[in-house]
C-alpha cells in the first residue's frame, strides 16, 4: 500500500518535472534574412535546393553544429541553413494583412517593411538630394556562387571549416 502510494507520488513528481517539455519538441523558427537559401549539405558549398523569404516559418528537423535542417511550413521541401539566418521571433507580416496585430511584442520582430524601411529611405533621400545610391545597389548584386567559392578555396589552398562542425 505504502509502495503503491510512493509510486504514485513518484509518477506525479515526474509528471510535474517533465510537464513543460512537450513530447517530441518541434522547433519552429523564422527566416530573418532577405533571401534565405536551403542547401543539400550543411555547408555554404552545398548545392542550393530551395529558397526561403524573410519571415517564412520553418520546422527544424535536424541539427549539426551551427547548421539546421529545416522544412518550410506547409511544404515537403527540406534543406540546411546556417542558424544565424534563423530567429525564434516571429516576423510579423506587413500591416493590413490578415491576422496582423498592432505593434510587436518582445517575442516578435517589428512588422516587415515598417520602421527604418524603404519608405523612410525614400524620405531620407529626398531630404539629402546629393546622396548617390547607384554603387550601393550595384555592390549588393556582387554574388559569389558555391562553385566559385569552392574553386577559390581549392586554388588558394584554404578551406571552410568542416561542414556543420563549427558553432
Amino acid at each position, binding site marked *: 500500500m505504502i509502495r503503491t502510494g510512493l509510486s504514485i507520488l513518484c509518477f506525479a513528481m515526474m509528471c510535474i518535472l517533465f510537464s513543460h517539455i512537450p513530447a517530441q519538441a518541434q522547433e519552429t523558427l523564422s527566416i*530573418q*534574412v*532577405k*533571401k*534565405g537559401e536551403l542547401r543539400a549539405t550543411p555547408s*555554404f558549398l552545398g548545392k542550393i535546393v530551395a529558397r526561403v523569404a*524573410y519571415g517564412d516559418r520553418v520546422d527544424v528537423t535536424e541539427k549539426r553544429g551551427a547548421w539546421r535542417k529545416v522544412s518550410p511550413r506547409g511544404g515537403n521541401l527540406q534543406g540546411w*541553413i*546556417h542558424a*544565424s*539566418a534563423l530567429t525564434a521571433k516571429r*516576423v510579423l507580416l506587413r*500591416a*493590413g494583412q490578415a491576422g*496582423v*496585430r*498592432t*505593434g*510587436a511584442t*518582445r*517575442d516578435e*520582430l*517589428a*512588422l*516587415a517593411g*515598417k*520602421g*527604418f*524601411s524603404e*519608405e*523612410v*529611405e525614400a*524620405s*531620407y533621400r529626398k*531630404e*539629402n538630394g*546629393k*546622396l*548617390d545610391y547607384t*554603387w*550601393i545597389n*550595384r*555592390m*549588393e548584386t*556582387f*554574388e*559569389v556562387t558555391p562553385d*566559385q*567559392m569552392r574553386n*577559390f*578555396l581549392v*586554388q*588558394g*589552398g*584554404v*578551406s*571552410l*571549416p568542416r561542414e556543420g562542425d*563549427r*558553432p
Partner: protein
Amino acid sequence: MIANVLRAGLILAATLALAACAAVETATTVATTVSEQAGVISPEQGKAIRTGTAAVSKSLEDFTPEQEYFIGRAVAAAVLSKYPAYASTPVNQYVNTLGQTLAAASDKPEIFAGYHFLVLDSDDINAFATPGGHIFVTRGLIRCCTTEDALASVLAHEIGHVRLRHGMQSIEKARITEALTVLAREGATTFGSREVAQLTQTFSGAISDIANTMIGRGYSRAFEYEADEASVTLTRHVGYNPGGLIDMLTVMDKKLKPGGPDFAKTHPSPRDRMNEIRSRGGVFPQAATPKERQDRFLKAVGRI
C-alpha cells in the same frame, strides 16, 4: 490590513516564481497586474511600472535585421559621398570572392542582405563596414597588403566590426529609445506622413551618429583591438596565415602619413595594434604563401 499585504505579497512572489522563465518584462507586467488586482498598488502606479520596464528594455536588440540593413545603406551612402567607387570589375570580383568566403566562415555568416565589398578609389589608407554588411576598402589600404593573407586580415577585421555590431553601438542611447518609441506606436494601418517624417529625422540622427564615429573620429581603441582579434581568429580558421595582419600593419606603419584624415586619425597606430595583438597571444610563425595564391593576388590587385 497586514493579512491583505501578506496575501498580495504571496501572490506576487508566486507569480514571479512561475514567470521566472519568461522575459523579465513579461514577468514584471504579470506581477504588476496581479499586484494591482490585489490592491497593493494603484492602477496608475501599475501603468508607470509597465511603461518604465518597456522603456528600459528598448535596446539594439529591438532593431530588426531589416532596419539595420537600411541604416547600413545610408551609412554606405555617407562613405560614398566622401570617396568614389573604384569601378574595376575584376578587382571588385576578387575582393568579393575573398571577403564573402571569409564571411561564410565567420560566426555570423548570415545577415539580412549578405556581405558585399567595394574598393574605393583613393590613396588614403581607409576602410569602413556598415551595419548592413557593406564593406569598403581604399586602394591605399590594399597597397599595404603584400599577400592575399594580408588582404584577408583586412577584410576579416571589417567583418569583425559588423559581427560585433560596432556601428550600431555608436548610435546614441537617447536616439535608440526615441526611434523605438515611434516604432512601438505603429498601428495596424500604414504610417501616416507625420510618423514617417519623425522616423526620418531619427533615422538621419542615427546615420550621423554612426558616420561621425566611423568616418570622423573613429571607434574606441577597444573596438579596434576586438576587430583585430576577430581578424586573427577568422583568418586562422580558414587556413590563412594570421600573421598577415602583422605584415600589413608593418607596411602601413611606413606608409601612413601623420595627421592624415584616414587611419592616421581614426585608428590606434599600427605599432600599438601590433603590440596589442602580440600581448593577446598573437605569435605567428613565418609562413610562406603558396605560389598559386600569391599569383592570383598579384594578378588581381598587384598594380592597384
